[in-house]
Every structure is written in structure tokens, then in C-alpha cells.
């Protein structure tokens, strides 16, 4: 019971992080919601039963945020693979702004427009670049990203540089 409450707290705390990751990989709102739930379930399973989870899931080798982000990214990539196989994955899907906080002023409207442009641009990047950049935007260090993705730090640096170049080009091409 105590574990359940702790996991619920954890899910509440990291729901925005999972939602951002889901939005980075899926434009369709209903699929996005499904993906967030799959991420939550995977995180719950990973933390399920403290002693059990020490054995197979979270081993305390990383911060909780890093671990949640890793599981969420795995689920997101898994989702992309499944959607590719179903051939229903829409790369150029519209970002549904109705589920973000509605803008109350022109400044907020501009911020939201920038946010939408960024997400649309991010979704156009190749998965390997998108992952690195999304994790950088979450504020993770290169070492943390390298551990999460299972690649070395220099590869992360190269991908980050390439991702930034590509995203800059995409953003500049926008009308």
C-alpha cells in the first residue's frame, strides 16, 4: 500500500515529463494519451514491489528522473516501431494545441506558437537525433543521455550537434 502511494506520487510528479516525451514521438492526440498510459504502466511495473524491482528494474544506479525518462523513451521508440509496422504513423501529424494550457494573452499565444513550431520541427527529425535533442531539452547531461541510450558520450555530442543543425534548418524553413 505504501509502495502504491509512492508510485502514484512518482507518476504525478513525472507525468508532464512523460507527456512531453509522448508528444515528441506522436502527434495524434488519442495515440499520445495511449502512449502516456503505456509509459506510466511501464514505469509502475519497473518500480513494482521494492525488493523485486531492485532485482530487475530500478537498481538505484541512476536518478529517478533519468530512470523514468529512459523507460518512457523506450516505450516511445517501441510505439514508433509498432506504428511503422501498422503503417499508420503520421510524421506530419498536426500538433493538437487544445490540450495545452490555453493562451490568455498575446505573449502567451506567441510562446505557444513557438512551442508548436518546435514540436513540429522535432517530429521531423530522425529518431536517433530526436531522442538526443529531446533529452537535452529536458536538461539531461551528455553522460546521462549516453547511459540512457546505450551509446558513448562522443556519439551523443555528434548526434546533438547534427540534431541542432537539422532543427535550425527546419525552423528557418518555416514561413
Amino acid at each position, binding site marked *: 500500500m505504501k509502495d502504491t502511494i509512492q508510485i502514484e506520487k512518482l507518476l504525478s510528479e513525472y507525468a508532464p515529463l512523460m507527456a512531453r516525451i509522448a508528444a515528441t514521438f506522436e502527434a495524434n492526440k488519442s495515440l499520445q494519451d495511449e502512449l502516456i498510459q503505456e509509459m506510466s*504502466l511501464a514505469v509502475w511495473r519497473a518500480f513494482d514491489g521494492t525488493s523485486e524491482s531492485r532485482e530487475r528494474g530500478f537498481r538505484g544506479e541512476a536518478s529517478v528522473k533519468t530512470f523514468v525518462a529512459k523507460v518512457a523513451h523506450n516505450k516511445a521508440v517501441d510505439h514508433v516501431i509498432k506504428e511503422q509496422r501498422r503503417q499508420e504513423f503520421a510524421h506530419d501529424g498536426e500538433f493538437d494545441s487544445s490540450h495545452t494550457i490555453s493562451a490568455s494573452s498575446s505573449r502567451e499565444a506567441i510562446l505557444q506558437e513557438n512551442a508548436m513550431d518546435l514540436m513540429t520541427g522535432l517530429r521531423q527529425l530522425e529518431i536517433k537525433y530526436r531522442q538526443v535533442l529531446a533529452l537535452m531539452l529536458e536538461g539531461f547531461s551528455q553522460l546521462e543521455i549516453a547511459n540512457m541510450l546505450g551509446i558513448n558520450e562522443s556519439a551523443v555530442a555528434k548526434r546533438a550537434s547534427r540534431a541542432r543543425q537539422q532543427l535550425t534548418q527546419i525552423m528557418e524553413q518555416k514561413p
Partner: protein
Amino acid sequence: MSDSESAMSGNKSAMSDNKSALSDNTSDVNDNNFNMNELDKQLAQWQSAYKDATPSVDTDVLIKDTKNARFKLKLKGAVDLVLGLAVSVWCLTLVLFEPLSTYQFLLFLVLTPIPVTFGVWGYLVRQRQWKVQTLDVQSMLSFKQNQLKQQLHYWKISFYGCLALWCGLLALAVFNVLMYNAYMLWSTQLLVNSVIVFIVYRRYKKLADDLPLALTKIDDMK
């Protein structure tokens, strides 16, 4: 004297060149700093925009749905195991306590461990799939590639198995048609089983055709 003056003049010229080089270096460093600042500024702007793009999530609903999904998952796993165990126990009861012919005895003896083994295997596969979610992305992608290869392998074995059974059925059909003239019964059985063999073959062929592209797509994500 003249030589010394000339040498001094050369030194002055070299110093002037050094100053110029130093000035160029300083300019390069300033340019680099400027570029780094610009990059940092751009990243900071993107970070801010990324946070602004956070979709709103009803965490209460999310937790409730996740709880339900987790419960359903556990229930499904338990039902699979219990059903497998129940069928195995029923087969074992027949083998141990019912008067059976030799063929029936052998059949139920072979059948007894299959349902419970299948249930345990399903449980282990699910556990392994959950464990994969906690690995790094590269390892998860490699696992996915292996999973696709294994899937093709299972369908290949299924196809050969179905084909072997169909050949056995054909032999029986030929024998029965020739001996007892039971044409309708055996031709119907052959036809029905041919459809099954064809479906399994089509599935295997489709997976085999799609596999290289699927593996390449996963490779591209690595």
C-alpha cells in the same frame, strides 16, 4: 653594426607578425565565444519552448487508468496460468483415474504438460518483455530485432509443421478414398486444411518479405 640593426629590424617585423597573429587568435576566440553564446541562447530558447509544449495531463485519470490496466494485465496473466493448470490437472486426472484405451492414454499423457508449460512460458515471455523496457534504448532495439527474427522463425516452423500434417492427411485421404471410397469426407478435410496451410504460408511469406525493411528501420534508429 649594420648586421645588428638588420637583425633588430627583423625581430621587430617578427614581433609585429606575432601581434597580428595574436590579434587574429583573439578575434577567433571572440567569434567562438559569440557562437557558443548564440548556441547556448538558442538551446535555452528551445528548452523553454519545449517546456511550454507540455500537453496537459489529468494525473488522477492517468493513475486510475494505469491502475486498471495493471490490474487487467495481472488478471490476464493469472487467468492464463490457472486455465493452463486446470487443463493439465484435468488431463492428468483422466490419465490416472479413468479407464482409457492405449491410444487415449498416450494422447492425454502427451497433452498433460502442454497447457501448463504454455502458461508458464507465456508468463516468462511477458516478464522478459517488461524487463526490456528498463534497458537502454540500444539494447531494447537489438531485442526488438531479435524478436522479429524469432517471430519469422516461429512462423517458418509453423508452416513446415502444417505442411507435414497436411502431407500426412493427404496420405490418409488417398488410402481411405482408395480403400473405402470416402471421397467427400476426405476431400473436405483436405480442402479445409489446405486453407489453413495457405494462410500460414502467406503470413510467413509476408513476414519474410517485410523483415529486411523492418530491420533496416530499427537500424536507422540506433
